[in-house]
């Protein structure tokens, strides 16, 4: 049977959103194929957590082992390789997350499975699949197919697939024995580290003025900060600004930073990579200033300004200050 497997992803006792996104997509694919969608949950003491997946898959394969307490690509790869080899699902879905990026390429090579990563679209085509991926930083969409027969492996981008509500399935929870044996791992988990919060918590701000790569250099940030302060807002940023150490990690909006929902979000020189948009699309009103009229940020903005931020921001700061003085 052309079954769809979904690797359920959890961390620190919680399912990641991508799990539900993949189960929803997996169910739709299974319906197209006249088959079933199965969740695969690996962990230690996750049986009760698995209750939250009930109704979302036909079967839930559960492998419990002390060595699966935290994600390690080595243990996950061993368990999944055995499961896929034995049960031969047509397709296995894994999140294109820090977990999936560490696991999927290796698993694909080991089992000689064709893999396409970071898919944002996915449909059934005969007994195979057609995927949409983003290339060139999201400026181009690429339609990709497999050249070889399955079983296939795909990683799906978090936030790209909606979760649709459907009737509950009669989920059967199937505990499986762990195939892990007492071997020494060459990669060992030592602990988690939470990024230090900055002076301000950007998730609490009503107004965020966010700077991106377009700001060109750290010397240009003060004027944006002054504008933010003049309107009672807080300064935040996109990833490139943190990578270049112009602002601290605590200021970063996006997948690897913070998810924010301010009343007003002003994106200054931010092109709008998907990973950034995921972190700010819940904002009430989005105003984007960018010199590239094709920048994806204009796809989520309510108001757009195509122009030179180095002229517009000083003018905005001036106007805001005049208003304050009145």
């Amino acid at each position, binding site marked *: 049977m052309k079954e769809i497997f979904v690797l359920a992803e959890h961390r620190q006792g919680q399912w990641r959103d991508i799990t539900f996104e993949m189960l929803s997509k997996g169910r739709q694919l299974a319906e197209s194929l006249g088959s079933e969608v199965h969740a695969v949950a690996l962990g230690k003491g996750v049986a009760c957590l698995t209750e939250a997946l009930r109704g979302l898959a036909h079967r839930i394969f559960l492998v419990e082992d002390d060595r699966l307490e935290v994600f390690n690509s080595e243990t996950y790869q061993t368990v999944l390789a055995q499961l896929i080899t034995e049960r031969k699902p047509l397709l296995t879905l894994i999140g294109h997350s820090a977990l999936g990026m560490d696991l999927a390429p290796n698993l694909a090579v080991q089992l000689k499975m064709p893999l396409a990563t970071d898919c944002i679209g996915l449909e059934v085509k005969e007994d195979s699949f057609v995927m949409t991926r983003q290339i060139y930083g999201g400026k181009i969409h690429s339609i990709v197919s497999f*050249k070889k027969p399955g079983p296939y492996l795909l990683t799906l981008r978090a936030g790209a697939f909606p979760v649709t509500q459907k009737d509950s399935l009669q989920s059967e929870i199937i505990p499986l024995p762990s195939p892990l044996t007492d071997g020494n791992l060459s990669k060992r988990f030592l602990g988690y580290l939470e990024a230090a919060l900055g002076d301000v918590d950007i998730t609490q701000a009503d107004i965020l003025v966010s700077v991106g790569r377009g700001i060109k250099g750290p010397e240009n940030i003060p004027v944006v900060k002054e504008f933010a302060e003049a309107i009672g807002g807080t300064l935040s940023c996109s990833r490139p600004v943190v990578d270049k150490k112009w602002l601290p990690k605590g200021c970063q909006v996006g997948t690897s930073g913070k998810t924010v929902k301010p009343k007003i979000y002003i994106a200054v020189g931010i092109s709008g990579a998907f990973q950034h948009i995921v972190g700010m699309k819940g904002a009430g009103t989005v105003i984007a200033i960018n010199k590239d009229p094709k920048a994806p940020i204009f*796809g989520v903005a309510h108001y757009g300004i195509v122009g030179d931020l180095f002229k517009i921001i000083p003018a905005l700061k001036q*106007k805001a200050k005049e208003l304050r003085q009145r």
Partner: protein
Amino acid sequence: MNIIVCVKRVPETAEADLMIDKTGKDVMKSGLVFDLNEWDSYAIEEAIRLKEKQGGHVTVISVGGEEASECLRKCLAMGADDAVRLTDPAFEGADAHATARVLSESIGKLPFDLILTGTQAEDDGYGQVGGALAELLGIPHATVVNQIEADAKKLKVHRELEGGLEEILEIDLPALLTIQTGINEPRYVSIMGIRKVAKKEIKVLGAKDLTLVANETGLSGSDTRIEKISFPPTTGAARMIEGNPEEVALNVINILKDKGGLA
């Protein structure tokens, strides 16, 4: 410590106006400026820092034609000791898996303790070559690494997870790490610096030098195929504000007031 860094030459497209070529499967490359993949510039910098701290040798390796040499020279100017370019018509059109195979065949012949790659490439964004290469070489790996502490037999690395979280791992050598942007500040390379290494030999290897069968590389060795490419559908409809900076500013201030931003 012997370190190998895999790099890729990519077009800079962030501010470019892209056009789709006649095949419908790629963008027109003429007029685009090419440079070292951003992730790879952090990887080569990290390798050089490790070498500076504890001695060793850095070899930089790239799959590509003659034009890939300019990226390799940039890496040599940054401080890499040797450069290898893997080039053959048979390698063309390779997907991530086929590229990893070419790299593994050439790297398998070299002594190494550590391999670094970028987490992903700016152009196709697979994020797949590093992990696939580690699997082909049979060595442990960690992806999305944003901190490394090395000793003789093992590394302590931080991986970037979602939401500002990191995980700390210990990993035995030899190993492969894929490097995330922001791990360091890549050093600036001047034109003078590149000139200084202009005569340095770049070793060129082809399919014949590697023990690869034709159907394992390039387009024919790929598991995936690009059917076509397109511009993304335009979503949403931002109301565009036009005018000179003062007019735009006034308009924005009015919007802010309207949305309760300037109480």
